[in-house]
């Protein structure tokens, strides 16, 4: 493997070098419906995927299939599981711009410079007081097809206006500053397995805290097709032996932090084996994704490809592009972030539909809070309370959850009041989508009413 160019590719996807990493169309084409199969194989899609998988395993295993390989094979060959994708808008997206009360005179008074015009964005069909932010046209279109449930004011009682505290609450699924496992991580601790790191996948350069588990392994990978290990001046039998040493080096240690490093070693080794079908090949996409600098659309395209390859994913977390902590320069920053996010999510949905996977995936889009109703005078807004969230997918019920509370009934800090609780949303997703008892995952689950989210 030529290390230098391999490195450049990876660099670009860190969105550090300002160039597009559009690598669609490389390799593994058989996972795309409608594309020709390799000549002469005569295999249908599923068979080919299974064979790809088997090939990878036999290349690795050399006839020594262990417990772990059996684990992946079993998970991959079992019934398809529902998948939940969490998309985080970092910084506290302004819910009063995401869906804005265009004709409300109080809104215009609170936002003398930031108020969006009635003609700028499409009307929200379920509540004609509201308009979609102009950049959210793609979500408005999906909503028109009945594939988006809108939560115009989601939050919790006694809202915390610290980014870190509020985000933490959402990530752990409770208003508990001390809880250290993520809500999806705890779900996987109950429903997942000990030998499948891909069950909780952070499409990122680091683990998303919502996926932090206490028992089962989870994974973090920014570019699945590049997940391989190479060392200078090592090849052949010796390389194979070197890679086989990762597992034992990752075995349990007494010192807690040494053990943390060992665990990362062992999980990386497992993930390396799981992703062997993609390593060095890449993947194709049946639909175009936005051609932008950010890695988000590329990562969603990779996610769809992994699902099509039948890899055993269950919970996925990813951060949306854009910076939503708009204390200043809000109009441009917000429009740019929402634009790439919404177009990418539309492409992802179309991708899943083209691959026949749409009924298996629901995507929850959220932010740690909304922003202050009154603008701050520096072309921006300060931290607020209730924010907006969306649930996207063909199986999403497509009806608003909680009403828009209006800007004439703000809380004592001048913030939007929540009309839906995020913990109730999590309970519904667990029970209606993931078929798990929410009381095992969400503290105090019994006290939250469950909105109907899935059809």
């Amino acid at each position, binding site marked *: 493997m030529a*290390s230098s160019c391999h*490195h450049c590719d*990876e*660099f670009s996807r*860190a969105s*550090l070098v300002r160039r597009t990493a559009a690598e669609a169309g490389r390799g593994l084409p058989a996972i795309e419906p409608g594309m020709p199969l390799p000549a002469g194989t005569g295999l249908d899609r599923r068979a080919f995927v299974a064979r790809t998988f088997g090939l990878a395993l036999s290349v690795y295993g050399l006839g020594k299939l262990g417990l772990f390989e059996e684990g992946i094979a079993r998970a991959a060959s079992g019934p398809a599981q529902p998948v939940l994708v969490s998309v985080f808008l*970092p910084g506290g997206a302004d819910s009063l711009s995401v869906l804005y009360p265009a004709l409300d005179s109080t809104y215009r008074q609170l936002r003398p410079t930031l108020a969006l015009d009635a003609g700028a964005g499409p009307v929200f069909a379920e509540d004609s007081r509201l308009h979609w932010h102009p950049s959210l046209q793609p979500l408005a279109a999906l909503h028109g097809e009945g594939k988006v449930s809108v939560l115009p004011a989601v939050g919790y009682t006694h809202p*915390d206006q610290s*980014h*870190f505290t509020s985000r933490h609450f959402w990530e752990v699924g409770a208003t508990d500053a001390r809880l250290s496992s993520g809500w999806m991580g705890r779900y996987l601790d109950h429903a997942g397995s000990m030998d499948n790191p891909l069950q909780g996948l952070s499409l*990122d*350069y*680091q*683990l998303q*805290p919502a996926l*932090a588990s206490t028992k089962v392994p989870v*994974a*973090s*990978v920014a570019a699945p097709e590049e*997940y391989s*290990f190479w*060392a*200078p*001046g*090592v*090849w*052949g*039998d*010796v*390389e194979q*032996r*070197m890679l*086989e*040493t990762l597992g034992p*080096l990752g*075995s349990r*240690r007494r*010192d807690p*932090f*040494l*053990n*943390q*490093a*060992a*665990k*990362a*070693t062992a*999980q*990386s080794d497992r*993930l390396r084996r799981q992703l062997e079908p993609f390593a060095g090949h890449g993947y194709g996409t049946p639909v175009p994704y936005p051609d932008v600098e950010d890695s988000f659309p590329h990562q969603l395209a990779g996610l769809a490809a992994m699902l099509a390859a039948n890899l055993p994913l269950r919970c996925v977390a990813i951060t949306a592009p854009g910076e939503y902590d708009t*204390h*200043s320069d809000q109009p441009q920053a917000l429009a740019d972030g929402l634009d790439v996010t919404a177009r990418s999510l539309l492409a992802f949905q179309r991708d899943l539909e083209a691959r026949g996977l749409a009924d298996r995936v629901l995507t929850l889009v959220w932010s740690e809070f909304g922003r202050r109703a009154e603008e*701050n*005078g*520096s*072309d*921006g807004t*300060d*931290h607020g309370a209730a924010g907006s969230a969306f649930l996207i997918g063909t199986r999403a019920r497509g009806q608003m959850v909680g009403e828009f509370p209006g800007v004439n009934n703000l809380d004592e*800090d001048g913030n939007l009041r929540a009309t839906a609780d995020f913990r109730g949303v999590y309970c519904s997703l667990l029970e209606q989508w993931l078929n798990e008892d929410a009381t095992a995952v969400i503290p105090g689950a019994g006290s939250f009413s469950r909105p109907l989210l899935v059809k």
Partner: protein
Amino acid sequence: MPPVYRGPFGKAQAERLLWRAGFGPRPGEAERLAKLGLHGAVHSLTHPGPERLRGPKPHDDHGHPLAPFDAWGHDQLWWLDRMVRTTQPLAERMTLVWHDWFATSRDGVDSARLMIRQNKLFRKHALGSFSTLLTEVTRDPAMLLWLSGVDNEKDAPNENYGREMMELFTIGADRGGYTEQDVREQARALTGWRNDWSDTLGPVNFRYDKHRHDPGVKKIFGKKGHFDWRDSCRLCVHHRLHPSFFVTKLWSYFVPTAPPVATRRELERLYVRHGLAVRPVVEAILRHPALYLGPRMVKSPAVYTAGLLRALRRGIDTEAWTWLMSLAGQQLFYPPNVAGWDDTRWLDTATYRARWLIASQAIEKRALKPDKAKLPDDASKLLVRAEAFFGRPALTGQTHSELKRFARRALGDANAKWKKEQYPALIENALRQLLASSPDLQTC
């Protein structure tokens, strides 16, 4: 006074101290430090001589000098070079601590010039007065841009800086230390900063303009007055909850488990008694038994990378470190947000692989050529050589025996003459890679 470590102070303890209070030993450095004893060793770190940069000068991939203000990524290389070559490792480590504590990102500042200016401020006050440091940071141009200080004016108060100053810099959230009303009043007290814009230089001429300041009475932490930005800083560092916040947060950069309550109180007293000076508190932490007897700590990517280069006596000779450290989760000058990097989440499957790549990059230039190298056909000897390559770092028995088992098995695969000749070099290369990315070298 807080308790002091009384056990033996040998090479292992000196090695740990050099990692926690700096960027790891150069070959032979731990042995030399051990001879000074605990107090002498700590004193040599907290009272170093004048700073010198030792070793090969940094350059980019084309052999040209670094251009930290102008070339993309060179800001990070400029700093990494200091971590590798400095003779004042603790001051450099404290600079990294303050960069994380007052986490400012070039993503929001958009000026290498201002970021490096802020970096020099952190270095200047590395072990000085926290009160002075907070005051200087509050009027630092990069910070004024990053947390909207220059957008904060009397007719339109902006809460960004006031909130983070209390939550992340001085008091801490969820401790009952302040209310949302205090956030608003702090924002008013902090009004008045502004700057100009130059088409050639960007943001310039940062200054306090009393016409933009709100001169009215504010009520902060129950006290009333015509407070301004200096009062704002003063009220925070004299808040009853500030000393406990300060010593607990500072401690967390050196020891991964929370300080015992008695120790925390002693550190608070020390801090207050010395007029909010940083150095005495750091000294007490570096002498504390928890640092030597407690669990290991996960190295941050900057510490891991600089440490590998120090061990190998290698200077900055490639720009690859910028993106490699970014993949590992720590691009200097770009902390993820104002709370800094999350020290509890350095290691996962993505960042582990990045560290593997960092190790590959560190050893690649010196990889042995199998047709040239003449190495012994003996697993133990190969491992001894690989350990010597990194200056013989302390290894756990478990890692040692796994590496030896690997070498023995790989030697056993050599079932032809050419393999018997060539495999020892391949195995030696693999041992270097495995050693550098082992759990032992990811932690200290």
